[in-house]
């Protein structure tokens, strides 16, 4: 059996390609979405949004990241006209969503979180219906292109109820694209879909961005935000905690931990291992090393070598990625 040595060029790794794509992102300076001091308090007193301000530029992919109930869907609902804001203002390409709602909404496409479709309609009819709602003349060629792009053309005469969950999700995207929107909201677009479909959707979204469409997506998959977005906004308890360039944010958040179960308990960490900033458990049996997954070197090889030289032996090791919950805790903690 032969072993092939792989030489990885740093500029051709997926992460490097992604970062290069971000640098050449077609986003321009035109603000497509402007949210100012937006708040929402529901009738039962629940404060879903608290003084949120945000700007998203044309051609940008912006991911709104947050746990369930953080306020992501409320934010999208207000922009799209489904929920009434308590205070604040929203403009889409300069059009106020209340005073000039027709102009604002005609620019927006919305893919909701739930698989809400009219089960008894044909795929092609319900897609054409969405276009008509936006006041546009029928355009069979465009509808065909949208359905082909989303691999639904073969199913155009099927009733919606006959589609699989993944197909329904794609149909919702097709409906949102039927009127050629300039701003596309994707609310948890890949929730509950398989990996292959998820990657297909990412490709679709990138293709839209290439055409100048501004994409705002919500997700609680950090991987998705990392893969797709130019910028990420983190929302928690209705507050926009931070908005940052994706590459920078991932560098800050994307850490992993290597846990070593020691053969013999340690009283203290040897001096020669100080540079690794290791954590030692109270009972002295576990060493934890936290490292940056986006760094050029993780330092694991050097650490293992230095452990050996220091005479520290271990019986087991495992790695663990920082969970989204931990990331949120770190972001909302006073120390952060």
């Amino acid at each position: 059996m032969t072993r092939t040595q792989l030489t990885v060029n740093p500029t051709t790794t997926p992460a490097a390609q992604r970062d290069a794509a971000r640098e050449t992102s077609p986003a321009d300076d035109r603000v497509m979405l402007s949210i100012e001091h937006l708040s929402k308090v529901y009738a039962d007193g629940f404060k879903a949004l608290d003084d949120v301000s945000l700007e998203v530029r044309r051609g940008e992919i912006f991911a709104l990241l947050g746990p369930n109930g953080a306020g992501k869907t409320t934010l999208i609902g207000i922009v799209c006209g489904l929920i009434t804001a308590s205070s604040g203002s929203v403009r889409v390409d300069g059009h106020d969503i209340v005073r000039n709602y027709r102009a604002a909404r005609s620019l927006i496409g919305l893919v909701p979180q739930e698989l809400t479709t009219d089960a008894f309609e044909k795929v092609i009819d319900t897609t054409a219906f969405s276009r008509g709602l936006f006041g546009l003349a029928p355009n069979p060629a465009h509808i065909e292109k949208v359905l082909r792009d989303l691999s639904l053309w073969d199913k155009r005469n099927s009733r919606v109820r006959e589609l699989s969950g993944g197909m329904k999700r794609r149909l919702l995207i097709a409906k949102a694209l039927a009127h050629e929107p300039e701003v596309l909201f994707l609310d948890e677009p890949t929730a509950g879909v398989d990996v292959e479909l998820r990657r297909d959707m990412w490709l679709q979204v990138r293709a839209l961005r290439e055409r100048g469409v501004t994409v705002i997506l919500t997700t609680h998959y950090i991987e998705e935000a990392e893969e797709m977005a130019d910028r990420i906004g983190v929302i928690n308890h209705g507050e926009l905690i931070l908005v940052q360039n994706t590459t920078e944010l991932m560098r800050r958040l994307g850490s992993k931990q290597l846990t070593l179960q020691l053969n013999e308990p340690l009283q203290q960490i040897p001096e020669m291992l100080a540079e690794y900033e290791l954590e030692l458990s109270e009972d002295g049996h576990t060493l934890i090393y936290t490292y940056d997954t986006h760094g050029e070197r993780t330092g694991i090889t050097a650490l293992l070598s230095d452990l050996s030289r220091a005479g520290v032996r271990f019986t087991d090791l495992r790695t663990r990625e920082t969970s989204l919950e931990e990331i949120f805790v770190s972001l909302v903690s006073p120390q952060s």
Partner: protein
Amino acid sequence: MNLRAVQTIYLFEMSRTFRTLLQSILAPVLTTSLYFVVFGAAIGARIPEMGGVSYGAFIVPGLIMLMLLTQSVSNASFGIYFPRFSGTIYELLSAPVSSFELVLAFVGAAATKAILIGLITLATASAFVPLEIAHPVWMAAFLVLTAVSFSLLGFILGIWADSFEKLGFVPLLVITPLTFLGGTFYSLDMLPPFWQTVSLVNPVVYLVSGFRWSFYGAGDVSVVASLAVVAIFLVVGLTAVWWIFRSGYRLKP
């Protein structure tokens, strides 16, 4: 005005009717035929003429009104309730469509269906009894105004209801009893004076009476009163719908 959206919603709603043609068309034809067999041929043969027309002919306007009211309310309430139930209402609310355009499309489609059913009922009735319409223009006006008014009522019901049970509540427990007690099968002067007075509180009496006047030139109450009641229904319905969209009641949290 986004007329294309109005047309899109209207045609979408109408297509539902044609998709369920048997239920939409055959059911009212069958129901009307049964009414005529029972009340027209079996019982009606033993009842003397009423207001100069046979009993079978006498009940025709009331039967059409019964169909018109129940169909208007059912069609409109289901039309707007179903997108709420299935969640597809998001598409309507996020589109560049005004509340007036939404109402125009949904109520227009519901009223159209109800009028079609009314005309089918009329055509079916004419197969059983000889019919003449004294004031065809007024007949058409009553048909359209009543269908629109009660479609508005149905639209409000569809917004208010949060279950299919509530959706069926008003047509079954309000509209049908009021129509049966509204002079569909009898003339008010057949009732004792006390019940005649009580009946005048029933708004459907005015609708049936006005509609019957357009057929035979005579009714239980004056045609002006009938028109006034239709107008009141229309104004109340429009006001309620205006308030619903202004407040976002059951539509926008």
